[in-house]
């Protein structure tokens, strides 16, 4: 669009036609106060805080609804404007309680800020204030009506952003009130977006309310550890008797791929960390009972046992199972530990998508993977399978926002009438299990139509339409495996600029696959049999493929697998393995809780979770992000440290495992200035230049060096990573991979309110689910 020239407070501003005046002012650093205006939501014009003077217009205008016009001359600050704003604040405060000392918003309240800037010190109202008791609308949403300033942000974000429409307005004019959809409570997705967006303390969160104050917390930016979407979140932590307790999660600074979005799990379900069942002491089985022990005892025992079994029966008698929630560094270290220290390729994890097939299909193709940001920007999106609203809330948000704000075209092919069909330009229902047939049809196999149902013309029209879409993003669920993916990629290569996104279920599922938690694949999907850089770097690692997870159980049953090392996984419950098959094996489990797998273990080591360590994770679309340590529970250790300690207890030189103490080119004499402040600045500089001192064998950054050097697609900018940015990894230089058995993929049984083991130990998710169960399952406006 053509640019328009306007003048704001004497500054010349050039801005595209159609820009709102408030945004034009913001672009030159002039802040126009506002309550009801919120970027990316529809315009409301309710609060009249943004009044500005536009020359030749008789009255003050609302900057949030006025579109710039050529030659406009605008004043944003004058006595008249201040007087008007002061009047608005005074009206808002007319019935506003003096709650600031107890109000959750106190300290970060927009009304407080406005009152400081414009407010009248005394009120002209002497009438008694109209009090209403606080209401609880759901386990996580509370409403304090007198504090509400009727900006309607909550209503709009729920309606437009979430497509739930659980909040509405009752009555008109001065007696308007915000009300939930189901008489006295909410029936919704419990995302907490309304609480987050509320400029005052009217909507408050069940998990945070009355606990602390914003300035009393430390704030740590990290990544949500639930689903595979990798939302960035800022966790508020405070001191507690047991270390550091997480009390709040949000992304108010809109950093990261998710803007300010978080679903219920990212916003509230960090409470598993402080569940009373959390393990805080190593346990060793003595006389058949798991008994508390010291760390030294535990590591010594594990080291002794593992060494003895490796000497006597060889590495193939030991199996290792990794996790979808641990960091890339831990996963990489774990498979390196299995291959180098144990001499075993028996390593696997709970797979939720066929990444090897995906990587193989995209091999040699640059720019073929879609990031989460692409989903928000692409002119068209094709979604095959999965139900993102339930399983990938951020992906669903990105798609909805894209359709709403950019008029992107969404095509949905699914066996269920999933909620995203409401945004779809085209929705096709197919029989369950026919997703593969659809991929084959797209690739040109018309015979596949038989299993799709519907008319041939309809399907062909859809295919032709898709072929004309430029920069199409093709998102598919784990229903597509092996050849289906190859077929889909074949179709995609005919569409200019098409990009792909495979959906896996857990926070670091993609990372676990990329880091080579496979019995027959090294990191970067290099087959173990092929002599390559890993063989060179690590020396004699076994080149015969190892056992997959079910095969390990078989082998244990046959008495051949003598030891099992499980890091943050629960294979017994997830795969329905009979626990007795491991009765003769020496089982070591690292976990937060006594899971079904941990109860059969000989040694259980209490592990820290992803909110309690640093490292990096890769979300399902391949966006690599940094996780930082926020919480802490005394008595636990990170998996990284435990793996290194076990290697050490086995008598292995840990320098061979973690390349710490190398690559430091910094002058140690100069890094310490006269004051500690100088030293700190220097450390930041070192970090920014990739010269951080990796002085400890427990430093994940030392392994990240090796990952960046050896794993194809991970050579991203460390500086950008450390600054908290997301960066896309890719498959262009991946190994050729090896075909995997499709039945090894077991999708997680998670939904919007479920999250595997983490969810089982989250009080918030439980209370929400119990609440849902209690309500009659009537049809709601929200679908």
């Amino acid at each position, binding site marked *: 669009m053509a640019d328009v020239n306007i003048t704001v407070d004497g500054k010349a501003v050039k801005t595209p036609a159609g820009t709102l005046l408030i945004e034009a002012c913001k672009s030159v650093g002039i802040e126009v106060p506002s309550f009801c205006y919120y970027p990316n939501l529809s315009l409301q014009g309710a609060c009249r805080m943004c009044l500005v003077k536009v020359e030749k217009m008789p009255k003050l205008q609302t900057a949030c609804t006025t579109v710039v016009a050529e030659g406009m001359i605008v004043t944003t600050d004058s006595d008249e404007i201040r007087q008007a704003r002061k009047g608005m604040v005074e009206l808002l405060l007319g019935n506003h309680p003096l709650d*600031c000392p*107890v109000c959750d918003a106190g300290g970060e309240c927009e009304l407080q800020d406005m009152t400081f800037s414009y407010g009248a010190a005394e009120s002209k109202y002497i009438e008694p204030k109209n009090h209403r008791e606080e209401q609880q609308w759901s386990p996580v949403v509370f409403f304090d009506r007198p504090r509400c300033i009727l900006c309607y942000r909550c209503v709009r974000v729920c309606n437009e952003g979430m497509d739930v429409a659980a909040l509405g307005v009752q009555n008109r004019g001065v007696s308007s009130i915000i009300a939930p959809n189901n008489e006295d409570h909410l029936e919704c997705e419990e995302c907490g977006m309304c609480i987050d967006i509320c400029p005052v303390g009217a909507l408050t969160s069940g998990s945070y309310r009355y*606990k602390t*104050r914003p300035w*009393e917390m430390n704030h740590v930016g990290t990544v949500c550890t639930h689903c595979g979407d990798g939302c960035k979140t800022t966790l508020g932590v405070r001191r507690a008797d047991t270390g550091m307790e997480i009390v709040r999660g949000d992304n108010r600074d809109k950093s990261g791929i998710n803007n300010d979005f978080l679903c219920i799990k990212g916003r509230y379900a960090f409470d598993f960390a402080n569940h009373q069942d959390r393990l805080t002491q190593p346990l060793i089985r003595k006389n058949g009972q798991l008994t508390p022990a010291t760390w030294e005892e535990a590591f010594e025992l594990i080291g002794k046992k593992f060494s003895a079994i490796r000497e006597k029966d060889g590495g193939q008698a030991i199996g290792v199972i990794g996790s979808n929630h641990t960091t890339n560094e831990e996963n990489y270290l774990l498979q390196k530990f299995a291959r180098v220290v144990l001499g075993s390729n028996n390593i696997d994890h709970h797979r939720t998508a066929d990444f090897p097939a995906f990587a193989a299909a995209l091999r040699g193709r640059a720019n073929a993977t879609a990031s989460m940001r692409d989903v928000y920007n692409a002119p068209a999106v094709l979604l095959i399978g999965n139900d993102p609203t339930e399983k990938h809330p951020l992906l669903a948000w990105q798609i909805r926002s894209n359709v709403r704000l950019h008029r992107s075209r969404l095509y949905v092919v699914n066996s269920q009438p999933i909620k995203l069909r409401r945004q779809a330009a085209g929705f096709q229902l197919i029989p369950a299990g026919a997703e593969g047939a659809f991929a084959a049809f797209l690739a040109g196999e018309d015979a596949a139509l038989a299993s799709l149902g519907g008319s041939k013309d309809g399907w062909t029209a859809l295919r032709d339409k898709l072929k004309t879409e430029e920069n199409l993003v093709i998102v598919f669920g784990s229903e597509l495996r092996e050849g289906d993916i190859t077929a889909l990629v074949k179709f995609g290569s005919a569409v200019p600029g098409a990009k792909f996104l495979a959906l896996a279920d857990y926070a670091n599922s993609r990372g676990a696959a990329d880091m080579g938690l496979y019995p027959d694949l090294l990191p970067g999907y290099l087959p173990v049999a092929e002599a390559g850089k890993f063989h060179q770097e690590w020396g004699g690692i076994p080149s015969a493929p190892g056992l997959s997870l079910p095969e390990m159980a078989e082998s244990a049953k046959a008495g051949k697998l003598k030891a099992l090392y499980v890091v943050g996984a629960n294979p017994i419950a997830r795969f329905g393995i009979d626990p007795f098959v491991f009765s003769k094996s020496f089982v070591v489990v690292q976990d937060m809780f006594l899971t079904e797998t941990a109860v059969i273990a000989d040694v259980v080591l209490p592990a820290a979770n992803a909110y309690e360590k640093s490292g990096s994770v890769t979300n399902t679309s391949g966006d690599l992000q940094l996780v930082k340590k926020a919480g802490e529970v005394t008595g636990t250790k990170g998996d990284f440290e435990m793996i290194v300690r076990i290697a050490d207890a086995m008598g292995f030189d840990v320098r061979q495992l973690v390349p710490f103490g190398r690559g430091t080119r910094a002058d140690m004499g100069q890094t310490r200035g006269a004051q500690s402040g100088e030293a700190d600045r220097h450390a930041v500089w070192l970090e920014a230049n990739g010269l951080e001192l990796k002085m400890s064998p427990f430093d994940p950054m030392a392994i990240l060096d090796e990952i960046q050097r050896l794993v194809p697609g991970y050579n991203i900018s460390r500086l950008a990573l450390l600054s908290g940015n997301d960066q896309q990894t890719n498959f262009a230089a991946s190994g050729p991979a090896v075909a995997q058995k499709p039945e090894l993929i077991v999708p997680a049984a998670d939904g919007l309110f479920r999250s595997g083991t983490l969810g089982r130990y989250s009080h918030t998710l439980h209370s929400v689910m119990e609440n849902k169960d209690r309500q009659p399952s009537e049809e709601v406006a929200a679908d």
Partner: protein
Amino acid sequence: MAILKDIAAIAKGMSITFGEMFKPTQVENYPDGPGPFKGAKFQERFRGAHVLQRDENGLEKCVACFLCAAACPSNCIYIEAAENTEEHRVSGAERYAKVYDIDYNRCIFCGYCVEACPTDAITHGHGFELASFNASNLVYRKEQMLAPQPAHLGANSIFNQAEVEGGTPSLPAQGA
């Protein structure tokens, strides 16, 4: 003659001594004096150990807003907030201080906390005997600083009595 001169000088001196002996004392008779402060006298504005006040219903005035902790230049106030419920009501507002500690190792008696408090909950009392052989005794807990129940509520006041081990202290905190 010299000796007479000396005797006269001593007599003159002693006359002052004996004369003063029977006049009322001018210095403070601490620590042998009467009253809770053992004879020590204070100006109204003296800033001594803190007292956490109660309202006329015996409820704690502190609403755990953390403003005192934010204002404190020596960072010595530690608060944990909790929510009042119907059954367990400690303060008049939605929230109360479940834990309220002042670390007198660090407090500089500047009075900023008192200035900051929106509910006049924290005040400086006149308690001054804070010395201790053990630094950890100098971290005062809420129970040590809380004002006694208002007399008109009597000893059996339903409010909060159980919270304070052995009942409320009868005096403003005096130091351990």
